[in-house]
């Protein structure tokens, strides 16, 4: 996107920049604003601005900084005044007025934007408009939001911020948790124009070419015979991180054994180790569901237990109906009684 010369593309790994566990609206906008400000500086456009625009830019940067990092200021607070009731006012009843609101019946489809988010709209808009006047559209990629595993946590963090970004005509790409595709999370995915699911790669016999090419690119053919490479591919379930971790672990075992190449036993041990890591922390209900899937091939994605198994990659989805227990986990699961 950046290379086409018509876009400013910002990559933001949110979890590395802010504490998402507090579930604060505005955190994404603050990160976005800071990156945008930096991008404008790097673009050299600032040098061509009029003196008025330079002033506006300065003010926008200050507002943004305050929004992102907060501010401390002195404010005037009037002393509290207290009126004694007159002595001859017999009907006086102590008390004070409170504000009462009766909610209307016609609720807006989306809650109104928080006031502080509206406040940041103007400085963000200034940056975006300045870039657009030089033929540059803004695209932002938010990484790390998939770690907010449950759909409600994800939505709490993103919904207000993404709405404002949409109003500002900023294209947003976000890594979302798998849970937005299933059950209670499904309505969330409908708020996005498009949802792309990055599924595990195929591990069926004859279909491991992509996985093997990843290993080959990393020099695995020096240590792994074709058969061992296939075993690593199969044990990974098509999950790239597991693929690389298994190949590395098997190689380490061969090294510790003093072997010149990776033997079947090294791959087996590496797969077992990975399977044990997946097995640890599973509840009895989850284990029951896994055994059911392994035995019958049926998997109800609307259940909360099963959604968790998918999100934590203990169950892998190869197609809309093709679910399988992660092969490394299946290897260490005890058969049902």
């Amino acid at each position, binding site marked *: 996107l950046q290379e086409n010369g018509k876009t400013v593309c910002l990559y933001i*790994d949110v*979890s*590395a*920049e802010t*504490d*998402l*566990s507090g579930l604060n609206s505005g955190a994404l906008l603050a990160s976005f604003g800071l990156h945008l400000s930096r991008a404008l500086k790097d673009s050299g456009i600032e040098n061509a601005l009029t003196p008025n625009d330079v002033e506006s830019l300065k003010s926008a940067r200050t507002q943004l900084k305050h929004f992102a990092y907060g501010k401390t200021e002195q404010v005037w607070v009037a002393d509290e005044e207290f009126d004694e009731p007159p002595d001859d006012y017999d009907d006086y009843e102590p008390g004070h007025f409170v504000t009462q609101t009766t909610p209307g019946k016609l609720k807006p489809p989306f809650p109104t934007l928080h006031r502080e988010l509206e406040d940041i709209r103007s400085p963000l808009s200034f940056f975006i408009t300045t870039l657009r006047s030089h033929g540059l559209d803004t695209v932002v990629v938010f*990484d*790390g939001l998939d*770690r*907010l*595993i449950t759909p409600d946590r994800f939505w709490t963090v993103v919904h207000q911020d993404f709405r404002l970004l949409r109003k500002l005509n900023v294209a947003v790409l976000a890594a979302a948790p798998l849970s937005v595709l299933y059950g209670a999370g499904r309505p969330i995915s409908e708020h996005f124009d498009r949802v792309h699911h990055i599924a595990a790669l195929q591990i069926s016999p004859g279909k491991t070419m992509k996985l093997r090419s990843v290993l080959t690119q990393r020099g695995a053919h020096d240590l792994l015979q074709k058969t061992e490479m296939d075993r690593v591919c199969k044990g990974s379930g098509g999950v790239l*991180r*597991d693929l690389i*971790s*298994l190949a*590395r*672990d098997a190689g*380490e075992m061969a*090294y*510790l054994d003093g072997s010149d190449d990776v033997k079947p036993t090294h791959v087996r*041990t*590496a*797969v*077992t*180790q*990975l399977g*044990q*890591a*997946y*097995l*640890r*922390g*599973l*509840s009895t209900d989850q284990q029951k569901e896994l055994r059911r899937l392994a035995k019958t091939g049926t998997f109800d994605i609307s259940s909360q237990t099963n959604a968790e198994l998918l*999100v*934590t*990659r203990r169950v892998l989805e190869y197609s809309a109906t093709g679910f399988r227990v992660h092969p*490394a986990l299946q290897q*260490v699961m005890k058969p049902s009684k």
Partner: protein
Amino acid sequence: MSDFSTQPPFDIGRRIEIRGSDAYSWLVVLRSQAPESAGPEDFAHELEAILFKPVRVASAQGLPLGEIRRRLEFPPDDVLILWGFESYTAHDWEALDIHRAALIRPGTVVLWLSPVALRDLCANAPNLRSFIGGSIFALSPTGDVMSGEERSERIRELEAHYDLKTAEVVELATARKLPPEPEFVEWLVLIGRGDLV
């Protein structure tokens, strides 16, 4: 005992060594529950003897995330053993999991965990678990899983190979005249004299 592969500190050290100093690697060492078992400091000393470089030990107990991050970042490239996760709740693990990207550093991180803490990590921190992969190793109560017989056998091999007796190796090490080969370090660790390395 654990279902995970049991590894002596020497092998864990060699794994860390071959992964390199910028491997962005995380692993778990599952500590023994026995009261006399080795602690993270003992384990760090063994690793130092194997890796020939300092190994830092830091407690995560009661620390906010920002503080843990600071311990990981300064410095970012040494081998760091993090312990003190026993009081971690599901919420604490979830918070750590969400911020996995913020915890990434070039140097190796060893999480020193009890079996219960490992279970909680696996249940509540799937991203962190995926990062660790199968690099979970169990230590025996003495911090060494080689049986007495295996240990004696390995010492006999070393004695035959170098045509030296163990007592002579101790003498050479005491006099700081021991050759720098890693096998001599292993030898000293095997006889419980890692202090001479």
